């Protein structure tokens, strides 16, 4: 498998990882569907959650794609991004409290909630090192492309990463939500919910560490 393929699979894997985590919202889709007795509401809620997640991914990835115009600084950018991801992971390791402002979002504003939850947990940041890695593989082929084509290319990659990740997240979360709604029942929720706080923080450190290792 090429590096690029491996990195794209990492984008999908991180999407599934976020999707199956109840903390990223699939139980809210089940609740919405049960409250209004309809599968339509389930899909609507999943779309809202996906929209919020997608915007959160884009909000983090696009600034980095703009930075990449500074082609000669690419190495430094990747080092900086890796350190940022590791720092967030370490912060989440130490500070295990949940941000209270998330509890102020009304249950009817699922897209907003999903956006804020993804931002607060660094879900977008987790993708940055993977994204930068993909950009490097692309640029090796591109050679000395002009700055504007480079930027356009990087933005397109950022958009693709965000979309692929969010699709994987929505399909996996959606599958579980539909399964719980139609067959498994809500007992599955408390049975299957594991505390991923520690694993999540360590994943950030790991992704950042791998990215740093790739640079040196």
């Amino acid at each position: 498998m090429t590096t690029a393929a491996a990195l794209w699979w990492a984008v999908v894997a991180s999407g599934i990882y976020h999707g199956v985590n109840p903390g990223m919202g699939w139980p809210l889709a089940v609740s919405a569907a049960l409250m209004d007795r309809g599968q339509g509401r389930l899909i609507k809620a999943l779309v809202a959650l996906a929209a919020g997640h997608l915007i959160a991914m884009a909000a983090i990835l696009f600034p980095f794609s703009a930075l990449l115009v500074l082609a000669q600084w690419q190495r430094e950018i990747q080092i900086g991004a890796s350190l940022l991801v590791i720092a967030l992971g370490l912060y989440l390791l130490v500070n295990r409290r949940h941000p209270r402002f998330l509890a102020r979002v009304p249950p009817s504003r699922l897209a907003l909630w999903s956006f804020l939850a993804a931002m607060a947990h660094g879900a977008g940041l987790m993708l940055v090192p993977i994204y930068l890695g993909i950009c490097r593989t692309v640029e090796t082929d591109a050679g000395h492309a002009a700055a504007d084509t480079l930027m356009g290319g990087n933005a397109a990659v950022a958009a693709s990463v965000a979309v692929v990740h969010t699709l994987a997240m929505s399909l996996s979360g959606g599958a579980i939500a539909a399964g719980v709604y139609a067959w498994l029942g809500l007992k599955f929720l408390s049975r299957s919910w594991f505390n991923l706080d520690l694993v999540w923080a360590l994943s950030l450190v790991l992704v950042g560490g791998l990215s740093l290792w790739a640079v040196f």
Partner: protein
Amino acid sequence: MNLRPDPTFHATPRLAMEAPAETLAFTLMLSPDGTQPDGLAVIDVDPTSKSYGQIVHQVIMPNKGDEFHHFGWNACSSALSPLTGHAFLERRYLIIPGIRSSRIYVIDVKEPLKAKIHKIIEPEEVFAKTGYSRPHTIHCGPEGIYVSTLGGGGPDGTDGPPGIFIMDCETFEILGRYEMDRGKQEKHYDFWWNLPRDYMVSSEWGLPPQFENGLVPEDLLSNKYGHSIHFWNLRERRNVQTIDLGENHQMALEIRPAHDPAKDYGFCGVVVDTTNLQGAIFTWWRKPDGTFDAKKTITIDPQPASADDLPDLLKGFEAVPPLVTDIDLSLDDRFLYVSCWGTGEMHQYDVSDPMNPKLAGKVEIGGIVKKTPHPNGKPFGYGPQMVEISRDGKRVYWTNSLYSTWDDQFYPGDRGAAMVMAHAGENGGLELAEDFWVEFPEGYRTHQIRLEGGDCSTDSFCYPSV
């Protein structure tokens, strides 16, 4: 923090009903004259146990004069909403406020037979951080632990209106006031909510000078106690509607929303109607346009009595009012239990149709005039008061004290503490368990009961039972 959600957290009321039955109850003990410190009694309610019906552990507080009343858990089934991010809390601490002292105790009951004080929040901290006093009802919700208060600032609690404040559910730090726009709300008592629909309902008793030294008859007869219920946008912290139940409906106390959040209605108990001494239950509901309405759906008549059998307060009326002081709704939203503290009756209503409740069962015990003894022959002082239903709906527990100074007005003299249990029939019917009778230490009275693993007035559910 757990690695899995606490096994006593349930997504739906139905799952909570199917969970293992309670083996322990926690009951508050108060010293009516403040000569002893108040306490928490841990009671064995496992019928297969040798110590069934006995106090197996007590936590006695280090202060006197707290007057324990209501209490609640640090965490409940509401933690299973991903919106709040508290899924891995433990149901481990009981938050016990003193309504006379404004002191708050946090009791660690992880090992119930070794339950101990975890933290004490002194009254000065409550006053300084909230401007409120006399903390009362506890519910765990989206932003942490919500505590209703009965008093505002100042020595007599009338400097500003009472309200709700929020505590952190892990550190038990007081975070501050809940309200951003209280609208017409000036008095407070109980509150509860529908979490997915994002609204809260609150009620009114009276201001501290109206209850601390006893019921004020002039205030009651001039309808100055609370008679409104307030509806709030829960997360916007804004009073969106106030419904006046009519000024003759004095003291709108317990708020019991349907446990299944897909149902948009609930109940509120009214102590006394000053025009006819009836007790009443109102059903409130949310209309399709999002506004609320309320209607009186149960009335309970006073019973004629000779003046000689009545305390001074009631002699002129020649009747004993039912005095609806507590209500509780079973987890399947089917049976509403109504304490008639004056007449000495526990009523069970079938509220399958919430607009048309039907009396399904009744137990007579205690009472101002009837003084019905327990089936085991022992006298039951006062009347049925704080009532708690087991999650499976099969057992109904209650105690007998209302509030120290009010006990003495309606039932002069000391009548002793009690906690009893009745079996509820599958399709209604209520019968006292002859073998369940708890002996309490001398000089104490009993108030609210909490059951191990949650009960019918603690847990809020985020998912419907379908």
